[in-house]
């Protein structure tokens, strides 16, 4: 019981994150189009400053060995390179410019009342499933 209650912190973190997404208009198809046409600095500013703050936070956590609230040492999962990051990255990029949303914003868009995006999300889940099904046959 306590364990499931403590999981609610992730719901709360997501909620705050979702509000920021909407208020910064990063879930907007229009802002994504501006980004890919170099018509606005907004998205570059959002992603760039997010990365800088993330980098600084990770550096501080490592430098001062800051522990989690449970007292654990923070662990990082190294990402190994494979060609999937190139092929998959290009494919995702193509989709991103069509839907105007990466996976996170899809959930937020549905929340704002764009109910039809449920179909986009279901299709994204289907895409993930098809990848899983044919994973062995794809170049990595």
């Amino acid at each position, binding site marked *: 019981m306590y364990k499931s209650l403590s999981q609610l912190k*992730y719901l*709360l*973190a*997501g*909620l705050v*994150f*979702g509000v920021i*997404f*909407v*208020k*910064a*208009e990063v879930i907007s*198809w*229009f*802002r994504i*189009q501006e980004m*890919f046409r170099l018509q*606005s600095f907004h998205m570059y*500013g959002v992603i760039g*400053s*997010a*990365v800088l*703050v*993330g*980098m600084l*936070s*990770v550096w*501080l956590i490592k430098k001062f060995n800051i522990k989690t609230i449970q007292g*654990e040492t923070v662990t*990082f999962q190294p*990402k190994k390179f494979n060609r999937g*990051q*190139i*092929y*998959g*990255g290009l494919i*995702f990029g*193509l*989709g991103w*410019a*069509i*839907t105007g*949303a*990466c*996976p996170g914003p*899809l959930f937020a868009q549905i*929340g*704002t*009342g764009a109910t*039809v995006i449920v179909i*986009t999300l*279901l*299709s*994204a889940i289907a*895409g993930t499933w*098809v*990848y*899983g*099904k044919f*994973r062995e046959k794809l170049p990595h």
Partner: protein
Amino acid sequence: MDILNFVKQPWPWYVAGPLIGLTVPVLLLIGNKSFGISASLRHICAACVPAKIPFFQYNWKSESWNLLFVAGILLGGLIAGAWLSNPAAMTVHPALAKELAGYGITNYQSLVPAELFNWQALFTARGLLMMVGGGFLVGFGTRYAGGCTSGHAIMGLSTLQWPSLVATICFMIGGFVMANVFLPWILAL
């Protein structure tokens, strides 16, 4: 209420970006979790339609935090949409507005263009390609790449992982090609 009106304005990038970046240490410090969103789609597959596929045979319940996180994003969208939304129409770059007007897109009242993404449009070639086709590419591509904008561009770059830089550059190349080469053709359908 002045504060509410202040919050209702679109937030500038230098407010939103750093707040989004703070998600990285928040998730690390509240539960040793690495920021990433597209993995939730894999967990949904593993939970609902594993179909004996090895890629979906793992204990998705131990990753349930990720599903709660995306449920939270949906709720956050609901709250921001219902109570904090900007009453004014979005302002976009004049060149974009001019281009989109050529495809009959003139409604800037909501963040998701009402003329492109609606239930009726789903039964048109353009709508089907954009919603079903686009969604499929997002789901397939992110899993193939091993992450999306959050897992690679934000978490991966924050931890200085070069494979994430490769992935992020490919996201951008794909996006530029689609928006400038193929999308005009799709929008004209």
